C-alpha cells in the first residue's frame, strides 16, 4: 500500500505556495496560520492518490487549482460516508458547486441528493426542488432527513423556464441547495450555473435518468443504482451501488452504500481505480 501523502497549501493573496509536506492519515488538517492581514485562513488540504510521483508537478497542479477554484469551494463540504469522503479530494463533497446525479431510477437520484441536501440545509437552509412534473411525493423524502417546511417545490414546463429557475435559485445566497430534474444542458449553461453556485454558495444537484445525456461540466458526476444482493427479509433503507463517474481534481470510484439509521454506511468492497484499473485499498 502506498503511503498517503498530504500536501498543504496556505492560500495567500499571492499564488498558493506549497509549504509543507505532511505524511499521515489526516485529511482534515485545520489551519493554524494567519495571513498578513491577521485573518485566519484555512489551509487547503489535498489528499493525494494520483500525484505520488513528482512533487514538482504536484506543486504546479496545486498552484493552478488555487488559481482557478474559489476559496469557498474548498471551505464547505458535505460528508457522504467515511470511505467515500476519504476518497474525495477535499474530504467530502464540495458545497457551492454543481453535481450531477444519475439514477437507474429517478427515485434513487432524488433520494441520494435529498440526503445530501438535508445535511447541507441543517435547520435553517432552504431547499428547492425544481422539476417539470409533479410526480414527487414529498412524504417519501421524510426518511432521508428532509424537513418539508424548508422545501420549496417549483414546477416549470418548458426547458428554458426550468433552466432559468435553477439559475435564479442558485444565485440566491439564502438557498442552501437546489435539486433539479434538468438534463440536456450545454457547456455554456452548465458553466453559468456553476459560476452562480460559486458566487452564492448554493449547491446544485442536477438529476437525470442514467440513460440520459450527461450535462457538460459538473464538478462531480454520480450514478446511483439499486444494488442486488441484500440479505434478509426486512425492508430496510435502500442499498445502492454508488459510482463516482467523474470528479474534478480526483479520480472515479465505486462503493456500495446502505442507508440505515440516518446514516450512509459504506459496505466494504474492493475499490477499483477506474482510470488505471488497479485495485486500491481503503
Amino acid at each position, binding site marked *: 500500500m502506498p503511503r498517503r501523502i498530504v500536501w498543504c497549501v496556505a492560500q495567500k493573496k499571492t499564488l498558493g505556495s506549497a509549504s509543507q509536506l505532511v505524511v499521515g492519515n489526516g485529511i482534515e488538517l485545520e489551519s493554524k496560520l494567519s495571513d498578513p492581514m491577521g485573518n485566519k485562513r484555512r489551509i487547503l488540504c489535498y489528499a493525494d492518490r494520483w500525484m505520488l510521483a513528482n512533487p514538482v508537478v504536484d506543486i504546479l497542479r496545486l498552484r493552478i487549482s488555487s488559481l482557478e477554484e474559489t476559496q469557498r469551494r474548498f471551505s464547505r463540504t458535505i460528508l457522504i460516508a467515511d470511505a467515500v469522503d476519504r476518497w474525495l479530494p477535499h474530504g467530502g463533497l464540495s458545497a457551492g458547486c454543481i453535481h450531477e446525479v444519475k439514477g437507474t431510477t429517478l427515485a434513487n437520484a432524488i433520494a441520494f441528493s435529498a440526503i445530501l441536501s438535508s445535511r447541507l440545509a441543517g435547520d435553517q437552509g432552504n431547499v428547492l426542488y425544481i422539476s417539470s412534473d409533479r410526480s414527487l411525493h414529498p412524504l417519501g423524502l421524510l426518511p432521508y432527513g428532509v424537513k418539508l417546511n424548508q422545501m420549496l417545490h417549483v414546477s416549470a414546463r418548458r426547458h428554458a423556464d426550468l433552466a432559468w429557475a435553477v439559475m435564479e435559485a442558485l444565485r440566491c445566497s439564502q438557498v442552501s441547495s437546489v435539486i433539479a430534474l434538468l438534463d440536456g444542458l450545454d457547456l455554456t449553461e452548465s458553466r453559468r450555473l456553476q459560476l452562480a453556485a460559486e458566487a452564492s454558495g448554493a449547491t446544485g444537484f442536477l438529476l437525470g435518468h442514467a440513460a440520459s445525456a450527461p450535462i457538460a461540466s459538473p464538478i462531480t458526476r454520480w450514478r446511483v443504482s*439499486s444494488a442486488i444482493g441484500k440479505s434478509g427479509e426486512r425492508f430496510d433503507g435502500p442499498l445502492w451501488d454508488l459510482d463516482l463517474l467523474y470528479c474534478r481534481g480526483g479520480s472515479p470510484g465505486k462503493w456500495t452504500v446502505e442507508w440505515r439509521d440516518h446514516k450512509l454506511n459504506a459496505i466494504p468492497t474492493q475499490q477499483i481505480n477506474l482510470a488505471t484499473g488497479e485495485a486500491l485499498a481503503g
Partner: protein
Amino acid sequence: MARCFLSIYCPDIVSDRLTRLVEWCDRYSPLVAQDGCNGIILDITGCAHLFGGEGPLLLDLQRRLHRMGIESHGAIADTWGAAWALARYGGSFIVHGENTRAALDPLPVEALRLPNEIVLELRRLGLVTIAALRKIPRNSLSVRFGSTLLRRLDQALDQAADPLTPWRSPAAYRTSRILAEPVSTVGSVEYVLHDLLKEICTQLEKNHLGSRRMDLVCYRVDGTVDRCEVRTSKPNRAISHLMRLFSGRLEKLWADFGFETFVLSVQDVEALHPTQLSLSPFETTGEEESFDLLVDRLGMRLGFAAVNRIRVLESYLPEHAVELRPAAASTLASAEWPAYRVRPIRLIDPPMPIQVSILIPGGSPVQFLIEQKQHRIVRSEGPERLTTEWWREPSSRYGTRDYYRIEDDKGFRFWIFCDQFEHWFLHGHFA
C-alpha cells in the same frame, strides 16, 4: 363638495377603439367609465388642478384626441347628466353651480338621457326643451311618464344621486408622471419608475402598508396603453426589491413612438409594520429578503401557482396526504406524518394497472408484469390497508386498498396495491 364631471362625446368611434380610449383616459382621473356606445365619462373632482385647471384639462384632452384623429365634443359640469347634455347638445363647455339650469334650459329634451319612446311622447306633447319640461308640475309628469323622466331631470340638476361605476376600481395609492418629451428606452422608463416608486413607497411607509400588487401603466403618444403588473408573495415596499421585479417586465414593454405618461398604482395593499433595525453588525436583515425576492421572481415568471410550499394534510390516502400550497399564500399548519408509514418518493398518477401472480389466495405477490416486462419479487412488506374516506367522492373508485412494498430481483422497489375488486396497480417508486 361639489363634484365635477367631464363628458366626452365622440360621434363616430368604433367600439373597440372606445374601450382603449377609456383606458387611456385614466391619465386624467382614476374614475373613468364608458358612457353609452360613443361617449366617456370622467369624474375629475380634485384632478383638474394637476393640469392647470378645468379649461386647460379639457383643452388638453381635446387636442390629444384631435391629434389621434378622433372628432370629439367635451363638457364639464357638476353632474354627469349636465355634462352629458352639454357635450352633445350644448354651446358652452364648462358650467358650474347656478349656471347649470340656465345652460340646460334651452337644450332639447333628448339631452336628458331618456329612452326613445319618452322623447317621442314629449315631442308629441310639444315639450321640446328642458325649460318647457321644468314648467310642468312634477306630479303630472310622474303620472304620465313614470319615474325615469323625473329621475333623469333630477340627476342633471344635481338633485338625485347618479353613481358612476369606473371601468376599474381606483387604487388606494396612485401617482403619475407626465413627461415633456416621450421616452422609449428602458433606461429612461426605469428612471421614471424609480421616481414613482420612491413617492409611493414613502406614502406606504407612512401608513405602515406594503404592496402586494402594483400596476405600471404607460401611455403611448398615439393614445394606446401598455401596462405591466408586479405581484409579491409578501407585502413589500422596498424600492430595490420592486425595481428588480419590474426590471424583467420593462424590457417587454413596446414603446413604439414613445411613452409620454406613466401612472403607478398599488392595487392591493396589506399591513406591513416597520421592523426594528438591528444595531448589531452581525445580524443582517437583508438575507431574509433575498429569499422573498427569489420567490417573487420565480412566481412572476412561472406563475405563483408553480411555486409551492409543502403542507401535510390529515389523510393517509397518498393522493390527499400532501398539498402543494402557493408560497405566496399565507402558511397553514402542517400535520405530523407518522414515521412508520413509509411512502414512495415518486407517485404515479393515476395508478398503473399491472398483472400480479400470487401463490396462495390473500397472500403477498410473487411476480408481476409491467408493460409486458416480468419482475420477480424477492422481498415484500405489507399489506398496509388504507380504507376510503367517505367524505371524498373520487377516492372510493378503488375502495379499500391493500398496499405492498416490494423489491424485484434487480433491486428496484415499488409500491403496489390491490383494490377492493382484486385489481392490482402500481402506485409509486421507492429509492
